[in-house]
């Protein structure tokens, strides 16, 4: 795995689950990491502490990345912490919030889900693109749901991730000529608090049983893929949405 020493990485939603694993992995490879969070200051501090204890550099910065003024704060605090160049952006923040069917949607729920998953990806990318140059890399966390429409009641989540997938391709075209690569990963069933909160155990067991590798993935395995994609090793991979699901999508 390529060394990320001296690079500055911003990971949104870095207080738990996949975002936390990504922040730790990038820091272990030498990157200075901004661990963004909104709800869990405790989780973000824990992520930062783990990085510092292993000799890495990281700061926790609070911002609701669905709000433009707070994205601006995140950018300014990033510059204050690590300077005016950002090399790596991982748009990981997101959430399902609740399982709701079409007749249960209201405008506030729509705005919440689309805001946290898609609007955040768009405007955080916009804010940080100006700090990124040749050799920069953006990875967006999409989802298996973007491919298959998601499990019951996750229609808006799946749709927001579909938008992230398409945005990734469009950004790859726009930023490719500047030497900034943009890719996405589409995790399948990963053992995280996300699923502890929103997916019943019997459903998880059923999905794991029908996954060719017969298990859930681990957040660290997604982090390994993200770390690869942001490294120079992946220098000709651009505009991809890479599935990481143990073969689930085709079972």
């Amino acid at each position, binding site marked *: *795995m390529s060394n990320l020493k001296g690079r500055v990485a911003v990971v949104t939603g870095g207080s738990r689950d996949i975002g936390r694993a990504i922040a730790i992995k990038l820091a272990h490879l030498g990157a200075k990491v901004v661990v963004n969070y909104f709800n869990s200051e405790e989780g973000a501090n824990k992520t930062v502490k783990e990085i510092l204890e292993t000799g890495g550099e990281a700061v926790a910065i609070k911002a609701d990345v669905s709000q433009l003024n707070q994205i601006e704060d995140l950018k300014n605090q990033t510059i204050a912490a690590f300077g005016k160049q950002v090399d790596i952006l991982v748009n990981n923040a997101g959430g399902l919030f609740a399982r709701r069917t079409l007749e249960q949607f209201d405008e506030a729920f729509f705005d919440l889900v689309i805001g946290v998953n898609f609007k955040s990806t768009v405007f955080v990318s916009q804010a940080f693109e100006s700090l990124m140059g040749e050799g920069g890399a953006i990875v967006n966390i999409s989802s298996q749901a973007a491919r298959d429409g998601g499990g019951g009641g996750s229609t808006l989540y799946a749709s927001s991730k579909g938008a992230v997938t398409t945005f990734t*391709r469009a950004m*790859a*075209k726009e930023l*490719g*000529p500047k*030497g900034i*690569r943009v890719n996405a990963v589409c995790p399948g069933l990963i053992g995280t608090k996300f699923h502890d909160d929103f997916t019943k155990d019997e459903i998880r067991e059923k999905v794991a049983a029908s996954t*060719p*590798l*017969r298990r859930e*993935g*681990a957040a660290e*395995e*997604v982090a*390994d*893929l993200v*770390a*690869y994609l942001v490294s120079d*090793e*992946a*220098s*000709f*991979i*651009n*505009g*991809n949405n*890479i*599935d*990481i*699901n*143990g*073969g689930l*999508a*085709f*079972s």
Partner: protein
Amino acid sequence: MSKNNNRVALVTGATSGIGFEVAKRLGHDGYQVILNGIEDEVGAEKVAQLQAEGVQAEYFGFDVTNEDAVNSSIQAIGDKYGKIDVLVNNAGGLGGRSRFEEMTTEFYRKVMALNLDSTFFASRAAIPYLKKGEHPTIINYTSNAGWNAGGPGAGIYGTSKAGVHAITRALAKDLAEYGIRVNAVSPGTIDTPFHAQIKSTKPEVFASWKNNIMLGRLGQPQEVASVVSFLAGEDAAFITAETIQIGGGQALGI
């Protein structure tokens, strides 16, 4: 990376182009690499080159479209090393160009054999030895042509690569219970001897290709090798049945 010590990787079609870069990369990652090819002299030369770089390399000459040769050679490799950890089905090729009206059955069978039979034969023969491997995996090669059905006269090449795409998923499902992961890479336009003819006869066409690539340049064989290296390793432990495009953003609609 010393963690790959004692891991055995077989790369078909490894005496030139991308295949050689893959063998070289895996060798430097610490694998014992077996280079397959059909030109024995070139094979010996390439192995000597890698050995001079400190890589543990060996050459096995056999034609990947010859079922009996594949079976006996892979058996010999597997028996010698006791296992195969990584099989890279890199061998393949365009085989020429032909429009359908004039296409001979012989040509059709040749191209299908080169790309699809070869992948099937080598994978089937390697399964008993992959089952004895550590974190065993197969990596196949598809192509943009597998999606867009190929350029002029390359329809059967595209068809064969679409077959490789499907057999990748099918092998992944079939072999998952043994912990064998199966993925594919889909190189876009890579600067290799594959394009030597057009590079010399139509340099203006060759030069224009980069305009269709978002990164504004062709890929290098090393950039394919780095993806194969990633997929072969433990960092890709939850990735199976997947095809990774290495095109610099060339074929975004797929």
